């Protein structure tokens, strides 16, 4: 019976994960004027603080930029046009997230290639172990049985 329970649970979990992913994408795509202005304020740097966004910073200049964002959004500018407006005035520095694709790809490239490398290493050593003769006169089956007993004792 338990054989088909896990696939069902897995299916449910995957469906839920998909729902979360769809929710994340949908949230980024749309939004009313206030929501868009909020999101933009989180992307722009407060000019006179240490790395806080306009949305988070309490300073006067941050609130001034916040008012400008509200005005620009009300004037019908797109998100990219609002960003371009502030980059023209303050430079790239005003954006809290760098625009270069390399800046976004590098960390994931490192994690994924390290993960793949480890996976390949594990896969290869598994095959080597499988091909090898029983270690110290103990067969693979016996090792597994011993192992499961040790696990059970271990709690």
């Amino acid at each position: 019976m338990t054989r088909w329970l896990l696939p069902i649970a897995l299916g449910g979990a995957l469906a839920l994960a998909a729902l979360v992913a769809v929710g994340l994408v949908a949230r980024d795509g749309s939004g009313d004027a206030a929501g868009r202005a909020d999101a933009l304020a989180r992307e722009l740097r407060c000019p006179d603080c240490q790395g806080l966004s306009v949305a988070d910073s309490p300073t006067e200049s941050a609130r001034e930029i916040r008012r400008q964002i509200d005005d620009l959004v009300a004037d019908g500018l797109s998100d990219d046009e609002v960003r371009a407006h502030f980059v023209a005035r303050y430079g790239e520095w005003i954006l809290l997230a760098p625009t270069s694709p390399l800046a976004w790809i590098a960390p994931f490239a490192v994690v994924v290639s390290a993960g793949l490398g480890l996976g390949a290493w594990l896969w290869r050593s598994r095959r080597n172990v499988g091909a090898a003769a029983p270690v110290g006169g103990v067969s693979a089956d016996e090792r597994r049985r011993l192992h499961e007993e040790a696990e059970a004792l271990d709690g």
Partner: protein
Amino acid sequence: MIPTIGHASVLLGLGLTAYAVVAFVLSARARDDRLLVSARRAVYGSFAAAAIGCAAMMISLLTHDFSVLYVAENNATTTPPFISVISLWAALEGSILFWALLATGWASLVLWRDRDRHRALIPWAGATLAAINLFFFAVMIWPGNPFALTAPVASEGSGPNALLQNHPFMALHPPLLYLGYTGLAIPFAFGVAALVTRRFDEEWLRTVRRWTLVPWIFLTLGIVAGAWWSYEVLGWGGYWAWDPVENAALLPWLTATGFVHSAMVAERRGGLKIWTAALVIATFVLTLVGTFLTRSGIVASVHSFTQSAIGPWFLAAIVLALGGALSLLVWRLPVLVGGGRPSATVSRESAFLFNNVLFLGLTFAVLFGTLLPLLVASTSGDTISVGAPWFNTVTVPIFVALLFLMGIGPALPWGAASWSTVSRRFTVPLFAAVIVALAALLLGLREPISLGTLGLAIFVGGVMLDEVVRGARARAGATDEAPPTAAWRLATRNRRRYGGYTVHLGVLVMAVAVAVSSGLAVDRTVTLSPGESAEIGGYEVTHDRLVVERLASDPRVIESRAEVTYRGAQSGTLGTALRDYPNSQAAIATPAVRTSLGEDLYVTLLAFDQASGEVTLHLFVNPLVVWIWIGGAIVGIGAGFAAWPERRARAAPITERAARPAAAPVEGL
């Protein structure tokens, strides 16, 4: 007189640590232990010297001795005694003095505790620790002298950094963090010792694991206390801004956490020696990098309140530590290669190894993001920013993957996992996660990140609970103990495993709290005249009056305070203020936080008009934030439980060693 004593004690510390380095190295070859004993005593002496130095500085601060430059710059006659005492770490020179106290303290502790153990390792570990301490004493003699004098002596000092005066947490957060930082020199020292003596054995691993876990606890608590301080003091309603100094504390934490996990695989299966040594080295070097980045003024940060000439010194120390340790590693490479390999792709050890990939990936991401503005500026001259939007997007997927591994890793058996084990252990938690998430969805939780994290947390927690219950039941069946007794005995006999589960539970609590508080927080900015009200997240907030007055405890500080009544899930009154300090250009916000288990009401005063009494308030309702601090405490308790010395090991170390070979064949599987 007092400053002279202080300076003399620093010189004494320098001399004693220099002697200790030489004596330890010589004692490695000597048959006679007297040299080793004298080197150890020199380290105890350097701790006493640092303590006298710190005491001299505290007395100078408490007596407002403005002939000392540090006191003149960080103290005033009106500074309250408590603030004077904690001003020891208010700025660079004092911080280094305090740092030296903790570093020599750790070195003394480890040498005293292991005085009868590891005869081969101790000389080299001691020499490394003494050399690190020598560096800090040297910094205090040359570029960062805390007892430098100034003339003419002013009658009034400029007072401590305004941000440091605003909250008692300043007494807690830096010492915890420094205890973590300085303690992580111990695993590094043992790593160097093992590389020199080629003793990368199980005993080494156990020693280093414990001496990593203890500073790790302090580093964890220091980071959480720092986040809490930031939340209570800075007034922006958040607790983590990906500030370079926050990142600097996180980096060694990530590698140390990776080490704690990989050490378990290394202990079980042997092997992974290069990796283990590299993690230990990286952790220590990253503590230096953090100090260098923030204290040299090379990156801007809330913490870079002082910029000074110590930058090149730290850079030299980093190059020396990294270069020296790596050369040692390469030199010993022939001894280190080889050892056990995991026998299956799906097993607990491979889960640990993937965990290491993720921790190191996070380390790379955080380091890359912190240094990117610097790299771009030095190559193309452009100034760019890398802030919260980048860090959140890049690190959240990795954190989620770690959380997932945290659930499946401990439930996978060592060696190889069969399909039946996997399905037996994961089916019920997976169902529970799906059902709880669906229920939350139906109850109205629509925010995707909160929903996803909640489901994941239920799954991970369910797997863990099943592990604990299964173990307790097996023991209760075998021993006739009542299940709670059985569970407790099981836990105290497997401290690492159950301590680890407790740490994971704390992490789960923090993860849910972070996801929910960042996803479901509401905030709005309102301008209110006296008597007017505003609504926020089920609260009605009424501005009663504006009060402008001098602080009773420090009359140089003017406080402008909005007195507010709030009604809702919590009711009462609060005062939220802006304080004008004579040595700070901007007024410092003193937010009011009303905490409950469900949510915090957080009110910051942004601006006020004294004539009309009108105030602009930033109102937040942040759900579950208190659970981040509670989760942090659970992590600390769990790690403390795991690091607690086991009775058996302490009472009879010899029997344990004798018993080990018999157990090894089973463990090695």
